[in-house]
């Protein structure tokens, strides 16, 4: 019988290894799987490469993982946000690497990685510093830049409702990168406020089919990052 539900966040991330590549869903705080990230901090894996659109805020969630020196490299499109101080400081000191990727290219690289497409051509970044040194090709009189798909050892995402087969739906703009990262993770872990039996989510409304999800963790009342940050909270 298929049941992907795991008892808690700690068990869900127990096998993350040093040097792993990890995709973490979210655009700013919207969709950030904060409880899974905190479990990863407790778990202790280090030298991680993390793929997220941003670099977190305050000293909770992704910013706390970076602050704990567990991340050696970030792949993102926008590493600075309001209340984002942890990454900039480490970056200026040369203590963390950055691969800056245009946001749409980042999304497509993740989708490609999860879809068996090794690379693709895009007009984005042509003639800019982010396109420099990349293979180019003219197709139908327009020049394009070659970009490579990316995959991850683990993906951590947040949904609103998941069933025990891993089928999932999201909440508003918290969906963002999650469905793409779910496809590109070797082990995809979703935290959901509600976990239900198969059949309880209308199949017509499912956004992420369960085949892309390996582990489901129920986090009934996930923390809200901006509230933790304004309260001055830190993790651990």
């Amino acid at each position, binding site marked *: 019988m298929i049941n992907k539900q795991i008892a808690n966040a700690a068990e869900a991330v127990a096998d993350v290894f040093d040097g792993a590549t990890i995709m973490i869903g979210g*655009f*700013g*705080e*919207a*969709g950030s799987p904060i409880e899974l990230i905190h479990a990863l901090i407790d778990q202790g894996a280090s030298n991680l490469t993390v793929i997220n659109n941003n670099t977190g805020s305050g000293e909770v969630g992704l910013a706390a993982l970076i602050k704990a020196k567990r991340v050696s490299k970030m792949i993102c*499109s*926008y*590493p*600075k*946000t*309001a209340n984002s101080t942890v*990454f*900039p400081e480490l*970056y*200026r000191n040369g203590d963390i690497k*950055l691969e*800056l990727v*245009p*946001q*749409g*290219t*980042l*999304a*497509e690289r*993740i*989708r490609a990685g999860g879809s068996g497409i090794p690379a693709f051509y*895009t*007009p*984005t*970044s*042509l*003639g*800019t*510093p*982010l396109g420099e040194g990349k293979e180019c090709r003219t197709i139908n009189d327009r020049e394009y830049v070659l970009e490579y798909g990316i995959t991850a050892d683990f993906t951590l995402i947040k949904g609103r409702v998941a069933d025990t087969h891993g089928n999932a739906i*999201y*909440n*508003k*703009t*918290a*969906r*963002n*990168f*999650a*469905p*793409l990262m779910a496809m590109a993770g070797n082990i995809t872990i979703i935290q959901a406020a509600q976990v239900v039996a198969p059949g309880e989510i209308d199949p017509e409304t499912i*956004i992420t089919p369960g085949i892309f999800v390996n582990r489901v963790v129920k986090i009934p009342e996930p923390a*809200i*990052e*901006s*509230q933790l940050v304004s309260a001055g909270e830190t993790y651990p």
Partner: protein
Amino acid sequence: MTGLTRDEMAKRLAQDIPDGSYVNLGIGIPELVAKFVPEGREFIYHTENGLLGMGPTPEEGEGDPELINAGKKHVTALPGAAYFHHADSFAMIRGGHLDLCVLGALQVSKDGDLANWSTGAPDAIPAVGGAMDLVAGVKSIYVITQHCTKNGDPKLVPSCTYPLTGCGVVDRIYTDLAVIEVTPEGFRLIELTPGIDFAYVQERTGAPLLQVEGHAT
């Protein structure tokens, strides 16, 4: 001579957006355009983090942390709105499905090159977001910006000295002093702000400004 305020610039630009347009507004002055939809027209706003049909800022305290715009500020969803993931969002952008994108600028060159993501300063944290995808894919790119920097240097230049966002991508520029079109021959003046004369704008523009024949100067 006094140019337009930020609100007046946004209002001026909004007059040129056709009814029914799908529009992406960048962060800063571009966001103000949404306040000035001309009577009788409807625009649908796209935000690249996964929403079409973005509505105004909610009342204080009514915001939802999972309903935000590309600037990570709370927004609302209007009737007819749709949520989608990032690959679909950038398919809308790159696939040429959006009619217009309004962006801020550090510099625009006479060839329509745009620099708006980095000054290239050694201690700056480089951050590009979706700007390079937007300029590569959206049908029309309008820039809205002060005509000059705070130091009085021209932002409209022969060629950009800051790192580029895209090459030959800008169609029009709306500033406090004028509306300017980018043509194969260079910058062309479309309209002067009332009370501003041609010489004043040319003096503050880093490349020659062409004039439409018969345009009053």
